[in-house]
């Protein structure tokens, strides 16, 4: 059991290490995402670090990216997406949909 857990942890750490190569970051501040347009490589798995600079929690959500993730206030979360076909993939902060929105562009 312990070995399985260690193995699992190793895989996850490895997954983390490999994706750090093309560092993609989205920052949420005053319920706005920067950058509002994020370009990623198509047909590849991509890791995005979502930094929440607000004190309030947010739910990063995109049906098209098949992601739903809570990012607590003053914290960050890692979102794994792809492989994506070339195209536009809108996302929102579900708790502040009016302002917290953006799009991932796969090309």
């Amino acid at each position, binding site marked *: 059991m312990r070995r399985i857990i260690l193995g699992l942890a190793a895989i996850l750490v490895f*997954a983390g290490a490999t994706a750090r190569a093309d560092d993609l970051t989205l920052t949420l501040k005053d319920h706005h995402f920067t950058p509002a347009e994020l370009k990623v490589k198509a047909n590849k798995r991509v890791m995005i670090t979502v930094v929440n600079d607000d004190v309030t929690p947010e739910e990063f959500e995109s049906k098209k990216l*098949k992601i739903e*993730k809570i990012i607590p206030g003053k914290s960050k979360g890692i979102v794994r997406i792809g492989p994506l076909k070339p195209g536009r993939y809108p996302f929102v902060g579900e*708790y502040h*949909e009016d302002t917290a929105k953006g799009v991932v562009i796969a090309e």
Partner: protein
Amino acid sequence: MLGALVIVFREVIEAGLIIGIVLAATRGVAGRGRWVTFGVGGGVLGATIVAFFAGAISQAFAGAGQELFNASMLGLAMIMLMWHNVWMARHGREIAAEMRSVGTAVSEGVKPLTALAIVVGLAVLREGSEVVLFLYGIMASGTSGSALLVGGLLGIAAGAAFTALTYFGLLAVPTRYIFSVTGWLIALLAAGMASQAAQYLNNAGLMVALDRVVWDTSWMLSEGSIFGRMLHALIGYTERPTEMQLVVYIGTLLAMYVLMRIARYSPREREVAV
């Protein structure tokens, strides 16, 4: 205020549907009210704890903690639902007969209420922690919070009303059919949970095989709409299912069918029948 109401209502729909179905599936079983209350109470407590540790959970396992946590919760609920249906396949007829002969109440402990209480608890925990975080966010942002908070609380009330609607809707089903109807609902619920869990594992960076999206029905019914959310909770509706999600969905239904057949045709059952 309306915005907060809609956001919270959207989150509680899933738990509401599950509680309504569980209440209908345990119709006529004494002590079920206590078990369901226990499940809801445990879920709320758990949701608060999970919300409090949201940051820590999120950072665990190289940032995949939240996904793994959700997948585990869904997986556990799926197993409990499967257990319930298999158990009912074996004992359902006896219970239905007893319900007809002694009126509505069946002796306590006849049915594994614990399994369904756990399902209720997990549903409340998963959806509830998002509601807790949202409401906490409103309070943390200060001044303009009170109207939003009222909206959020009204959203919870609307969710409770929705639970009642589900329950009374299912009560309209005649006693003869109630267990087959709830059995089907529970099977679809379990399959939907399994496919959702598969996607969470994919998001966690595990189980990344078969990740091609098979179809896209977002033009027809958005998963974010209220009706889309309901179907999502009820049968696992996803606007863009991956191959893996479809495989897991069908696999869960098949596994449940096979297990129920085995349970139904056990030698013990035949002895009882003779």
